[in-house]
């Protein structure tokens, strides 16, 4: 079976008693030597959410994840799980499932033994019997649709299979929180797409509070119910994917989430934008960020919009990305991008070099 197919119909509630927990991070500051990886980060994650920590590399997102797991000392600040302070608790006592970017499967153990590990190292009092362990491991392997691989070794598996085994292993101890460090980072594009969907379904089914780290905004938007955007060790914005996309809190978030055209307003641009029909009354700053799909294109007939020249276009599946040139201040050219559905673009019957008029529906304003 491949990832992406619907999950098997086994009743997980019989096997798993995952009690989802909320996470509260208060004022976390972490320094590595003189480098500040996290700068007074406070974050609240309600139980049952699937949260993406999103940011460029070096923004501190993995450090934050490792601090929640207890794999990294907190530095300053507190970590609370279900309102209980666990800052000084050892990683092995936190009851957290951690999935590593490069899977970190035990290479000398079979798939079965890997998944059973967390159960077998439990203290004798709470350790299940071997038959109970076997039952649970097989149920977990069925959950990740890989029970047929139970006697293989990790180096006999593909990347996507390893990732799912790593997930099954983390789930075996019934963690109250599931943490995933760039879970799809090392996979092929097509496998990644399947696994994203699969992770969403799995989360829907188990409902365990989950946090995953990614630098891919598309992945964050697609999988997560909440997105936390980090930059330079600070939280730039937290919200649902649509909130983040439609109402970016600042210029960084706007640039990082999806493509955007940036106009730093001088007189020339200001005039040009006004001619595009953009309403200026709502403006709050000097810099306008305009999403490609907020630009409408018409063949130039009466110069009723902002003037530009069509330079080129690329197919992005259902959408076409159109490269436009507009005259900038003192004669220099500026490139901007618009996006529209394929068939709409065909109807316009445009050629390279055509003069076009632009109408801009809306912009986000930043200082």
């Amino acid at each position, binding site marked *: 079976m491949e990832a992406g197919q619907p999950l098997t119909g086994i009743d997980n509630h019989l096997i798993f008693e995952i009690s989802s927990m909320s996470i509260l991070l208060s004022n976390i500051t972490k320094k590595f030597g003189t480098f500040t990886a996290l700068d007074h980060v406070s974050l609240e994650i309600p139980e049952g959410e699937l949260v993406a920590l999103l940011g460029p590399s070096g923004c501190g997102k993995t450090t934050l994840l490792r601090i929640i*797991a*207890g*794999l990294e000392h907190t530095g300053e600040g507190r970590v609370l799980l279900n309102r209980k302070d666990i800052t000084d608790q*050892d*990683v*092995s*006592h*936190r*009851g*957290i*499932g*951690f999935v*590593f970017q*490069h899977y*970190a*499967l*035990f*290479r*000398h153990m079979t798939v079965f033994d890997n998944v059973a*590990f*967390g159960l077998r*190292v*439990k203290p004798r009092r709470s350790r299940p019997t071997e038959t109970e362990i076997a039952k649970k491991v097989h149920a977990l392997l069925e959950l990740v649709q890989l029970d047929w691989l139970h006697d293989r070794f990790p180096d006999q598996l593909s990347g996507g299979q390893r990732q799912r085994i*790593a997930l099954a*292993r*983390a789930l*075996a*101890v019934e963690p109250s929180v599931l943490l995933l460090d760039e879970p799809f980072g090392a996979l092929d594009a097509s496998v990644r797409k399947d696994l994203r969907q699969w992770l969403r379904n799995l989360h829907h089914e188990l409902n365990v509070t989950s946090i995953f780290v990614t630098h891919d905004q598309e992945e964050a938007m697609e999988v997560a119910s909440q997105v936390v955007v980090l930059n330079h060790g600070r939280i730039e914005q937290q919200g649902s994917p649509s909130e983040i996309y439609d109402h970016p809190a600042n210029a960084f978030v706007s640039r990082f989430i999806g493509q955007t055209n940036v106009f730093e307003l001088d007189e020339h641009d200001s005039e040009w934008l006004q001619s595009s029909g953009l309403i200026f009354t709502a403006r709050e700053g000097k810099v306008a960020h305009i999403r490609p799909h907020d630009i409408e294109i018409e063949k130039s007939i009466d110069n009723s919009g902002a003037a530009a020249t069509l330079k080129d276009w690329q197919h992005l599946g259902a959408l076409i990305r159109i490269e436009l040139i507009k005259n900038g201040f003192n004669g220099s050219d500026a490139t901007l991008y618009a996006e529209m559905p394929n068939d709409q673009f065909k109807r316009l019957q445009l050629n390279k070099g055509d003069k076009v008029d632009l109408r801009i529906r809306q912009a986000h304003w930043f200082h």
Partner: protein
Amino acid sequence: MNAIAPPLINIKNIEKPYRQQALQDPDWVRWSLIAIAVGFIFLFICLPLGLVIFQAFSKGIAAYWSALSQPDTLSALKLTLLTALITVPLNTVFGVSAAWAITRFDFKGKSILTTLIDLPFSVSPVISGLIFVLLFGAQGWFGGLLLEHDIKVIFAVPGIILATLFVTFPFVARQLIPLMQEMGNQEEEAALSLGAGGWKTFWAVTLPNIKWALLYGVLLCNARAMGEFGAVSVVSGHIRGVTNTLPLHVEVSYNDYDIIGAFAGASILAALAIVTLILKTALEWKQANR
């Protein structure tokens, strides 16, 4: 045109000689290189080894046996085994902890520690022995203190063990450090996150991953512990039947024109070396075929 035209030249026929020409040296280069290598190995390894055995048995098996069963030889063998029995486990523990410390923790002076581990390799064994004489000898730093408490280190078994410990220290650590560096510590972190304690993580995850390299290091360490001459020679005092290890016994016997005794002792050392070599090859083979 539907049919594919047959190739003018059969590729199969030209491929092999072509490859030989492109990737291999001319025959005379190959054969002379092989001859040099084999000749060298025969002249400098097989011939001396054969000579040791030939000399040991030159007066017959009875003479060989009686040379071996002399009390001095037996006590030298015992001391050699005792030394190895003490130093190898100690250096295994030291080596694992040093490798662990260097690959798993960040601390000041880490690079100095890494260099220091190699020190016994770069220092002449004689100097290594002298260090202990200077420390624990009658005129040494702790000499007076030891004399007061009537503890003998130099010209006694403790000195031999200390010198061997020093000389064989790098073997285990040297084998483990590159491996553990390459492996990283994610598997251990995974074990910890699954609820395993530090000790359990070591036994269930770290040790199985490093066991072949560890065994290899132990084997090399053992070979050196049994064969060490220079450092031990300085601290031993060559007291027959008391502080003579097997290598020292061989030298003493040889100097006494006891050819059979010297070569009988040497044949045991050679046998130990060969056993080590076979085990080492087996380990390498096993490691490669895992």
